[in-house]
């Protein structure tokens, strides 16, 4: 399938799907463990195409996420920018890691994302009472192989560069 030179729309579409998944209603026992789809998408695209997706994309997506979540404007934006910055620093090493090593790094990155969100929420006086807010880091790391293969498949199929 020959698309336009770099098929941006695949990236856009994947972020849109991530945003939709991020607000889809969840059963009560899963609310704390919801994977951070948006952070996963940001990490993948930053590793795969660091010259296309980076801090600016993370900023825009983060603000969209803030509005959707009803959070303080800038909370997710700040967290995602830090995550994409770290992914940019690490991408050359990450690419040669094995799948589960990558998942471990994703665990740390999403954990950082959650911590920053938690800090900002505490400024507002609405922080979580327990450490449950770190659960998404685990679920995101477990889902990393799925995200990686899914998005990589899409990227190769549509030749996104």
């Amino acid at each position: 399938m020959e698309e336009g030179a770099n098929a941006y729309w695949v990236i856009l579409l994947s972020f849109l799907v991530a945003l939709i998944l991020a607000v889809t209603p969840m059963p009560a026992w899963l609310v704390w463990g919801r994977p951070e789809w948006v952070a996963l998408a940001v990490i993948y695209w930053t590793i795969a195409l660091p010259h296309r997706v980076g801090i600016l994309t993370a900023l825009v997506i983060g603000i969209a996420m803030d509005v959707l979540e009803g959070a303080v404007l800038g909370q997710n934006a700040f967290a995602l920018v830090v995550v994409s910055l770290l992914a940019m620093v690490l991408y050359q090493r990450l690419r040669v890691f094995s799948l589960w090593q990558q998942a471990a790094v994703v665990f740390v990155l999403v954990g950082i994302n959650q911590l920053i969100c938690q800090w900002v929420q505490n400024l507002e006086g609405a922080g979580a009472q327990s450490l449950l807010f770190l659960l998404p880091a685990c679920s995101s790391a477990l889902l990393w192989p799925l995200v990686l293969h899914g998005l990589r498949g899409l990227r190769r199929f549509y030749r996104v560069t």
Partner: protein
Amino acid sequence: MLVLIVADLRYNRLGYARGALDTLLTPIYWIADLPTRVGQWQETHIQSRDDLLQETERLRRENLVMQGRSLQMASLQADNTRLRALLNSTALLRDDVLVAELIGVSPDPVRHQVVLDKGESDAVYLGQPLIDSDGLVGQVVEVGELTSRVLLITDSTHSLPVQVNRNGVRAIAEGVGSLDRLEIRHVAATTDIQVGDLLESSGLGGRFPTGYPVATVVTVERDPGQPFARILAKPTAALDRSRHVLLVFRSDPPGVD
């Protein structure tokens, strides 16, 4: 970015931008809500005749009971108006309501917010109270063109003035971040509040209308070593279940700062 956080948190300067972005991002909530919609459609359109007949029968009976109960309403209301006039207080005005549907719930479990399918185009305003069939639900904190965002009374940043239905004792009910708990803060240990008391909105803050049920008291702990009693209440509204809610329009919308 940090400037953005501070601007939103401390100075609340970004109301319009948020409203606009909300409008822009409405489709995402709409799509995320699609599966539920399809489920509902299926429930209403693909249903056996027997079920429908049963449902109609049930509703008819319920309607009869309700009508019976409201027979005396007119005379009671007239009575009430007369008595209030005797007491020199202003007459209670009947509030208008608008039915709204929930299309989204905040994905963040510490943030008790929901998104409604009514917005500025339906004259929803900031600070507008929201009820369901059983009690007070929350207030509007953000208005987009077609949607609005509601802060539930159980959010840990929310508190509202209430009074005990039995004796008129006033108090403040605070959310604690759990959907089935409200905490009644700073009530002296000798105050007359008992388990089972109904708390209703007192209307003192000027934000919520008077007399809507808010919660029932479930525990009262009086520890002699503590200056205040520890009182927990359970919201009467089905905060985690109701999909249809009512936006209350008041004849005199209070000013919102």
